[in-house]
């Protein structure tokens, strides 16, 4: 199956890259933009994994490698069942 993981800085942590993008958008006149947070996207192709197993596996991979739990949070979704 294919899963997509989004890793971003925690809400409580200032995201200067997101702020810079927000300022650029405001400069261009997109004054409806309240806030911008920037993150990273990972797509994992998992072989022979059930949905139930993915629920255990994906958060483990995120906590150990893809995200640094001190500063980042993640969420994920299944893109395609195998």
């Amino acid at each position, binding site marked *: 199956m294919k899963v997509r993981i989004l890793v971003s*800085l925690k809400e409580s942590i*200032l995201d*200067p890259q997101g702020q*810079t993008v927000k300022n650029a958008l405001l400069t261009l006149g997109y004054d409806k933009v309240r806030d911008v947070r920037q993150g990273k996207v990972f797509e994992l192709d998992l072989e022979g994994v059930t949905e139930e197993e993915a629920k255990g596996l994906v958060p483990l991979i995120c906590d150990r*490698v*893809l995200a*640094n739990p*001190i*500063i980042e949070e993640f969420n994920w979704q299944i893109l395609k069942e195998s």
Partner: protein
Amino acid sequence: MKFGVVVFPGSNCDRDTYYALKDVLRQPTLFLWHKDHDLKKVDCVVLPGGFSYGDYLRAGAIARFSPLMQEVAEFAVRGGLVLGICNGFQVLTELGLLPGAMLRNKNLKFLCQFVNLRLENTDTAFTRNGTAGQVLRIPIAHFDGNYYAPPETLKDIESHNQVLLRYSTPEGELTAEANVNGSLNSIAGLINKRGNVMGMMPHPERASEDLFGSRDGRVILESLLKGF
């Protein structure tokens, strides 16, 4: 004292560090390849600056999975001395040997400049040649050195006197301006509770001879030699 300088793909201060330890301090020094499993009986492991694994994922995030780093982690647990400089500091936080994490510099710029550092705690193997309150002039060169730790961790670090270096003015004052990268509590260098693992963003090897414009880095490097 026998030093081992770890070399990762992308390390770029390994030679400078080797030079400072071997030729300036005149200590037996060797390189340790990240794929090896053997620390070759060194007394102190130094993780040098650079961009291990191209800073892919997060600075220091991949280096910690190197075979040699498992040995370094065990070495640290046994009480062995470990010094992480710049990228080495980032690796130590990723590995969990030091608390906290590094965020991008507050101004989103790569900072390559001399900074002033106030020496806080001189009761450690890494700082005992200095005096508390002394200001050291040592260069930094990093993109991700904005130190962060959750409030409770930060409180714990401070209450155990684990902060060894803070960004300051030349007079030793802590100001927002002197805190160039935006680090919490102006933290530039930290030690673990046990006192055998230190991480610092500034580069002591780049301030080891008068020719470099400062030799203040030797306060840190030479502290390690006491007793050896």
